[in-house]
């Protein structure tokens, strides 16, 4: 079409008075929005290319730039909002599936914000974390139902000093510098990071003791060496951002390093199949779990990651009985580097419900000890962590939160490979923008801050060991929830 109906999404305002024509914005924009015009002798901006990543705004030394939503409004329409209309135009013009990045941004309720925590008052004392030890160490892995003092054998465990792990993000969807930042931080904090489905790059072998490797449906990068080095192996059945479909990495992002680590030819699209083609039923999963256990001599936990879907409680029960040591459940707010928009926004259920339902079901079936539960799908802060543990999780995965700590501004354009912050890109000019020294420092800062906040909240409840918070639903009250929601989460309403 000679004229597109699609207006720019954003408007760039440049304060002419403040702009000193230093061209930092020109140097930084990976989408070529800002250019130096010789004739006009100043910087000009093409807003149609702007993705609102804030790079130029943050870097401008005189704060001359700001960005607002393109001010042209459609007639008020509660049914066809401007997003729905623009998406329709895009499909009419292109005939393609709409892609997006990061997690579901639709206004579904965020149930973490409907949960309130307890504090001790009078009848038992709160504990001061500055003066008393508060232990938040946790172990992930299968636990025997009883202690056998005569036996030397104990199922393999992952020891975490803080109940937070870095979620799976593949090398290919993110840059190697992201992996370096995650690995270094995990190692320093004594927690774990997950390679995602792109394999483990050899530069990261030194961090293997804190690394979870992933066996996803495409089996990218899976070989004996990677399995031998890792601390744990995760079978990825699904993820919250795109339940039911596999990963997609466009060929442009498959450079030499990605090719070598994934063990695919450079420049080829890395498309993971929707199911594992050797897992069509629960017994097939059991076979893969035990194949991996045999291959690793039963020395490391085997995890299974699933998206939170309707029948998650029964699915989790099956996974536990299939022999998994840890089940990771990814709620519908989970992020991704590339996912079809409709699937991201309409498939899956919130992690709060999924977690509560799974924890309750496993206890009813008296098998809760057989697996540890890791909750994922938008854990945004330390209060979400505490609430997740109280609902029944052993630990949480953070993906989006970790990327935000590395500089992501949630522009949701990861799939273009032009991440201005050096995160979701393989372009060497952009990859250098994430300095792993700074990246890992930010991640360590984030988790240390959360560690202190978690201890404050636990101390406030009169709890000095994380075990006593796990599944302790009485420490939660619901606010603004209906009867059914309270019942599913197994909590009382505020005031009860």
């Amino acid at each position, binding site marked *: 079409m000679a004229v597109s109906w699609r207006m720019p999404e954003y408007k760039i305002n440049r304060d002419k008075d403040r702009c000193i024509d230093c061209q930092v914005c020109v140097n930084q924009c990976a989408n070529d929005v800002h250019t130096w015009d010789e004739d006009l002798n100043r910087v000009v901006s093409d807003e149609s290319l702007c993705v609102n990543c804030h790079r130029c705004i943050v870097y401008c030394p005189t704060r001359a730039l700001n960005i607002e939503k393109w001010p042209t409004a459609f007639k008020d329409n509660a049914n066809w909002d401007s997003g729905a209309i623009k998406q329709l135009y895009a499909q009419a013009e292109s005939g393609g599936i709409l892609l997006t990045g990061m997690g579901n941004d639709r206004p579904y309720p965020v149930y973490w914000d409907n949960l309130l925590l307890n504090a001790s008052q009078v009848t038992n004392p709160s504990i001061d974390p500055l003066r008393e030890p508060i232990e938040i160490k946790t172990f992930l892995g299968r636990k025997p139902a009883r202690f056998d*003092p005569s036996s030397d054998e104990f199922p393999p465990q992952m020891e975490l000093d803080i109940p937070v792990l870095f979620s799976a993000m593949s090398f290919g969807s993110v840059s190697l510098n992201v992996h370096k930042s995650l690995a270094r931080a995990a190692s320093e904090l004594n927690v774990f990071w997950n390679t995602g489905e792109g394999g483990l790059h050899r530069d990261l072998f030194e961090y293997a003791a804190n690394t979870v490797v992933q066996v996803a449906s495409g089996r990218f990068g899976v070989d004996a060496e990677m399995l031998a080095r890792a601390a744990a192996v995760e079978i990825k059945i699904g993820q919250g951002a795109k339940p039911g479909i596999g990963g997609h990495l466009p060929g442009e992002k498959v450079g030499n390093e990605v090719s070598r680590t994934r063990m695919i030819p450079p420049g080829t699209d890395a498309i993971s199949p929707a199911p594992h083609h050797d897992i069509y039923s629960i017994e097939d999963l059991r076979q893969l779990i035990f194949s991996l256990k045999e291959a690793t001599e039963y020395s490391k936990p085997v995890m299974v990651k699933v998206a939170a879907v309707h029948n998650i409680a029964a699915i989790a029960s099956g996974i536990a009985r299939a022999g998994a040591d840890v089940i990771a459940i990814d709620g519908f707010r989970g992020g991704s580097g590339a996912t079809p928009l409709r699937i991201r926004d309409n498939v899956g259920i919130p992690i709060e419900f999924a977690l509560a339902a799974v924890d309750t079901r496993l206890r009813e079936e008296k098998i809760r000890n057989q697996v540890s539960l890791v909750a994922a799908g938008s854990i945004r802060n330390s209060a979400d962590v505490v609430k997740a543990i109280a609902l029944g999780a052993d630990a949480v995965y953070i993906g989006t939160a970790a990327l935000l700590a590395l500089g992501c501004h949630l522009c949701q354009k990861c799939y273009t490979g032009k991440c201005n912050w050096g995160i979701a890109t393989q372009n060497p000019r952009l990859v250098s923008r994430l300095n792993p020294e700074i990246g890992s420092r930010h991640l360590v800062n984030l988790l240390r801050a959360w560690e202190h906040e978690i201890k404050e909240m636990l101390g406030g409840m009169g709890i000095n*060991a994380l075990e006593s918070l796990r599944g302790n639903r009485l420490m939660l009250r619901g606010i603004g929830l209906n009867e059914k929601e309270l019942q599913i989460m197994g909590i009382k309403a505020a005031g009860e």
Partner: protein
Amino acid sequence: MREGQIRIPSGCAISGIINRRGHGFSGSAIINSIALMHERSNGMGGGFAAYGIYPGYAEYYALHIFFESESVKAEMEKNLYASFQIHLAEEIPTRKSRKFKDAPIIWRYFATPLPAALERYDGDEEEFMARFVLRVNSTLRGAYIFSSGKNMGAFKAVGYPEDVGEFYRLDEYKGYLWTAHGRFPTNTPGWWGGAHPFALLDWSVVHNGEISSYDANRRYLEMFDYVCSLQTDTEVITYLFDLLLRKHGLSLRDAILVVAPPLWSRLEELEKNERERIQNLRIVYAGALLNGPFSIILATGNGLLALNDRLKLRSLVAAEDNEYLYVASEEAAIRVVANPQKLWFPAGGEAVLGLLYGKESLYTGGRCFDGGKLENAGI
């Protein structure tokens, strides 16, 4: 409102006395001890556990039962006679008192399970008894079995403990081990079954404090078919020890390492095998860790165990005087009944164990993998 409908936290007073030679003494001593701590209660509950008080019926389970009406009593007795041979059934003797004019019907039955009833449990008498009591208490409205051990009994009511002791005429009994509890609940329960001690088989627990890990413990116990119908801390503590000591056969030292584990940082000072062992215990029994302030006295036919939480957030004093061992919430409560040679204040997580001479373990069933000798349980 009663226990089981809502959760009622409480602060309290506890006391315990054992004659380690097994010589019986009158309940007056324990009554005087708990009476001294009158201000720690608010009259909303008091109770005692006494051991060795039924020497003539020592082979039989002594079921103490509250009934709210004659019709419930009739229905309960049908249940009892179907599963037990009842050797003696009688009202528990009490002194009439204005303070207890709302008293329920209180009876005791000396019973032996019928062989037919034990078949389902492979002859495991204790498992049968525990299941029977738990089932009756959670399903039969208006009846509550508040004591179910051999040669022992719990006595409790809504009132000050010294008044409760007088009501039940405990000065007329002779027992070698007595524990007592006075309650200060923050609500007004009117129900006698909710007072302490909580008793099951010959376990009895009196407890001062509030378990902040309650729901984590309860949901863990439910996986082993315990029903925490009273919603009290004492119930959960009793079930935890029953699980750890009777069903899983842990030694007493290990059980204490489970409910009041040493800090992770302290484990680093130990040698590798011991460190891994304690670490694994804590990992397996994470749901049994008791958090929140507590001082508890756990008693069985073999003796008593007194324990504080690992941060020592409740008071507990212990004393020894020849064959007598005393524990109480206050030093004065011991000195009012004795002039002990040795008196001390146990540290957080450090157990005080008073067993009958010649007994090696708290658990009377003897099912204990390594003998259960308590050496230095608090490390």
